[in-house]
């Protein structure tokens, strides 16, 4: 089992579809604790990536990720643009020249991508951000790989950890981003960034597992 360049392309296409489907949902989540733009911004970014599919369809995984990164940086805006842009940029650096990667390599890629987000956003876990979904997902993936679980199972466990991490943001007090201005009133709302992070990782598990 491995993850091929075509798998990566199929994943990005699925993410674009899922984000478009969840555009209004993400806007709704962003309204009470943010500024009601997360769904629209992410949708604009992934639509723009779809516009680049023609020029990246025969490229290596690193080039695909870097193109996605630069497209998100240039089209998304807000905090999500630089954050997801950095996520894919780091992923691209780890996959330069590769046409396929193993699940072990994917764990390394995802860890580097998360490190990029942490560096750019200076956020830690428990601050009600996308880091709260991504961190447990990376941990679960690394653990599953270390335990020799199958690729399908590792991806599934990682996506489930992201989902739990996303749900865990509901009772959290926001300490980063615009939601932090609300103080106590940020409690009780699910973080939109953690939600989009879950959607993205869940899509990888579904697409690569052929679900």
């Amino acid at each position: 089992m491995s993850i091929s360049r075509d798998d990566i392309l199929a994943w990005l296409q699925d993410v674009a579809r899922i984000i478009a489907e969840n555009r209004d949902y993400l806007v709704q989540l962003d309204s009470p604790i943010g500024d009601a733009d997360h769904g629209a911004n992410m949708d604009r970014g992934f639509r723009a990536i779809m516009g680049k599919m023609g020029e990246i369809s025969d490229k290596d995984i690193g080039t695909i990720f870097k193109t996605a990164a630069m497209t998100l940086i240039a089209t998304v805006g807000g905090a999500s643009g630089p954050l997801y842009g950095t996520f894919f940029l780091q992923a691209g650096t780890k996959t330069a020249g590769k046409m396929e990667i193993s699940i072990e390599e994917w764990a390394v890629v995802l860890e580097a991508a998360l490190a990029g987000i942490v560096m750019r956003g200076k956020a830690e876990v428990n601050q009600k951000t996308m880091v709260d979904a991504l961190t447990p997902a990376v941990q679960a993936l690394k653990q599953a790989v270390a335990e020799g679980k199958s690729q399908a199972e590792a991806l599934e466990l990682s996506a489930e950890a992201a989902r739990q991490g996303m749900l865990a943001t509901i009772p959290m007090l926001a300490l980063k981003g615009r939601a932090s201005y609300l103080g106590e009133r940020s409690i009780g709302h699910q973080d939109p960034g953690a939600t989009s992070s879950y959607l993205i990782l869940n899509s990888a598990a579904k697409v690569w597992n052929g679900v």
Partner: protein
Amino acid sequence: MKKLINQPEDVVVEELQGIAYAHGDLVKVHYNPNFIVRADAPVKGKVGVISGGGSGHEPMHGGFVGMGMLDAACPGAVFTSPTPDQMLEATKAVNGGAGVVHIVKNYTGDIMNFEMAAELARAEGIDVEAVITNDDVAVQDSLYTAGRRGVGITVIAEKISGAAAEQGRSLKEVADICRKVNAQGRSMGMALTSCTVPHAGKPTFDLPEDEMEIGIGIHGEPGRVRMKLKSADEVTAMLMEPIIGDLPYKSGDNVLLFVNGMGGTPLLELYVIYRKAYEIAEQHGLKVVRNLIGPYITSLEMAGTSITMLKVDDDLVKLWDAPVKTPGLRWGV
């Protein structure tokens, strides 16, 4: 949603087209990436001053491009930070060889995008100094938040920094005067209504008819506390006291007093607010030597106001009085 728009996704570009038709004598509009630039940019030997932010705050920032103020402004989508490619191209377009100051409001997205743009510009050999505005006293504890937001002082900082650059001051001097304005200025705002982001289609938050939100930011994000509506004088006091207490301003200080409209509040009410704010300032021994009253940093159609006060010295007053010729602010020319 009741708005005079065509398609939500076209509002920013159509606004830019309108600005290009209306103010072609002062500015040029560049598309893909989008930015508004002074018609005579780059001005050789002059420090460039640029800013940017989400759309929906007009006239800030695009309305402040022109002689004596900004050299360029980068508009993002409504309430969304612009992107590094816009800022990079704007930086290159205004670089007259003396470097470029980025004036950045303290919002997570704006900070990150401008940081990336500054890294890219420096990689191309342009000196960039970023100055972050964070004057909103409504955000109390910066340890537990993303820090104080950049609000009303940004308008004043853009005017004064632009004037300093026009005088031929160096990159460091212009950046320092901008930092000084931010350090000596404080703001606080309030809302009577929410506002509707075009692509969201409905109000960002619900605010009952008889309630108001004190400590609001400029993106329709809820503020510090919600309470029953009070009189203009009471509201003005609730905004002025935290401002005065924060710096702190002291008796004998000269100040510039800026009463801003959030977009949906008429000048009639802003002058009522100004009247009380002026009296409160005088009661504290503060001498209001300059003022600005009107909708300059707005939040779409939100009804409400913000008050900004800047402690000024002779240099700042001279820079404030210096000629400015932009679509949104014009005097002395």
